[in-house]
Structures are given as structure tokens and as C-alpha cells.
């Protein structure tokens, strides 16, 4: 299930409920549990898309939350708690690759593509996803990361901007430009 990314950008604005929860989470395990539950899926999805293996993804996800638990008293809330968690996740993933192997791109994503029961449309969708995978892989790492943060981790533009040391407008434009480029490339293939 994916969340509707077109309507979630108000989340970047300072959320007092979240701020209260973060403050409480330093001493109250149930507050920390709520933060954990609202972020676990996104963190895991992001890490899995980078490492491509569920055991490694679980191990790294656990490391992220243990580091967050430890670092929470030092965290200063600026309205982007998820971005803070993702910055920990990014560090954990890059440490993992430094000690293991370079970035891998496993092309097994196509199980998800069959929306209809029609085998022909399902085959077309799989081929499109496969071609898209190649196109995304041909982008530079920063652009791939932007797409991953938006469409795998489902972060809003504010959170992505925070993680990329950019502003919301620039981030939004860059992602839309990337989508336009990808669409154009797919259309060229069809012609």
C-alpha cells in the first residue's frame, strides 16, 4: 500500500503533536513506541531498497532505531523528525556498504507490478518497470536517492529538502524534472 504523496506536504510544517511526542519519548517508552511505529515501515522500505536483502535490512533498521533511542536526548526538533531518522539510516547504510560491498540494484521489483489479472497488461507493466529500473539506474546517485526518498520512503518534499540540504521548491522542481525526463525516455521507447 502506498500513501498519497500529493497531499502530505503540510507534514513538513512544525507539528506540535509530534514535538510533544519527541520530548516525551526521552523518558516515556510509550511515546517512543509511537514514534517507532509511525516510522518503521518507511525506514525499512528505504533500507531494503538499498541493500536488497531482508535480513540485512532488518539488522540495519534495528541499528537505526537503537541509535535514535540513544541520540534522542540530543536531538533538537526542527519539524523534520523523519529526516533525522533517515539521516541515521543513510549513515548506517553507507557504513554497511563500506564494510561489505558496493551498491547493489536487484531487479526483482517486478512482482508488484501486476495490478490487473490480465496477463498481457501485466507483461507490459513488468516491461515498463524493467525499463524504468534501467533508466533510474542510469541517473546519478543523488537523483536516484531523491526518487528513492520520495517514492520508496514516501517522504514529503520538506523532509527530502532537509535531507538534501536544499529548499522545498528546488527539491520539488528537481523531482518533477526527473519524472518528466523519465516519462520522455519511456515515450521515446514506445515510438
Amino acid at each position, binding site marked *: 500500500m*502506498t500513501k498519497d*504523496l500529493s497531499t502530505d506536504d503540510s507534514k513538513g510544517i512544525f507539528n506540535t503533536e509530534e514535538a510533544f511526542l519527541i520530548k516525551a519519548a526521552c*523518558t516515556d*517508552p510509550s511515546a*517512543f*513506541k509511537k514514534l*517507532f511505529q509511525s516510522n*518503521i*515501515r518507511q525506514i*525499512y*522500505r528505504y533500507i*531494503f*531498497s538499498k541493500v*536488497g536483502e*531482508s535480513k540485512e*535490512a*532488518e539488522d540495519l*533498521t*534495528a541499528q537505526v*532505531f*537503537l541509535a535514535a*533511542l*540513544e541520540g534522542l536526548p540530543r536531538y533538537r526538533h526542527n519539524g523534520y523528525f523523519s529526516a533525522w531518522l533517515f539521516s541515521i539510516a543513510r549513515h548506517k547504510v553507507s557504513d554497511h556498504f563500506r564494510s561489505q560491498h558496493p551498491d547493489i540494484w*536487484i531487479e*526483482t*521489483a*517486478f512482482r*508488484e*507490478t501486476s495490478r490487473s489479472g490480465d496477463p498481457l497488461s501485466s507483461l507490459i*507493466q513488468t516491461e*515498463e*518497470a*524493467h525499463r*524504468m*529500473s534501467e*533508466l*533510474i539506474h542510469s541517473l546519478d546517485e543523488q537523483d536516484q536517492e531523491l*526518487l*528513492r526518498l520520495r*517514492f*520508496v520512503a514516501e517522504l514529503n518534499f520538506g523532509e527530502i529538502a532537509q535531507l538534501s540540504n536544499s529548499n522545498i521548491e528546488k527539491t520539488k522542481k528537481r523531482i518533477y524534472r526527473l*519524472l518528466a525526463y*523519465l*516519462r520522455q525516455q*519511456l515515450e521515446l521507447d514506445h515510438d
Partner: protein
Amino acid sequence: MIDPKQLESNQEIEYIVRSAFQIQDPDSSFIERLQIELADRFKAAGASTIRQNIFFRRSQWIGKIKLLISPLA
């Protein structure tokens, strides 16, 4: 005003982008295990903070007594 055709086309390309990535959700048993692990760590961290506070308060208290009795010595 957003052009409905443009919106539809954006949604379509976003869907294809999502399909091109590996998307997998965490296993529920993993979430439960990690939740327990975090709760244990939380308790352990809380206990060590309490121990540290007791130790800190005790040393403060001893320091104060030392200060009080030093002129008498």
C-alpha cells in the same frame, strides 16, 4: 488549476517509478521483536540514568557535608 490529464500522467509515471524500485514492507514478527528490544534498552537506559542520578546526588551530599565540617577540622 491542475490539468487533470497532466495529473493522471504524473500518477502513471510515479506508479512506474515505484514499480521499478524494490519495495518490501517489514515483517510483523520483526517489528514485534524490535519493539521488545527497544523497550528493554529503554528500561536499561532508564535504570542506569537513575543509578547515575543517585550516585551524583550522593556525591553532592558528601561534598556539602565535607564543606560544612571543614572549618571544624
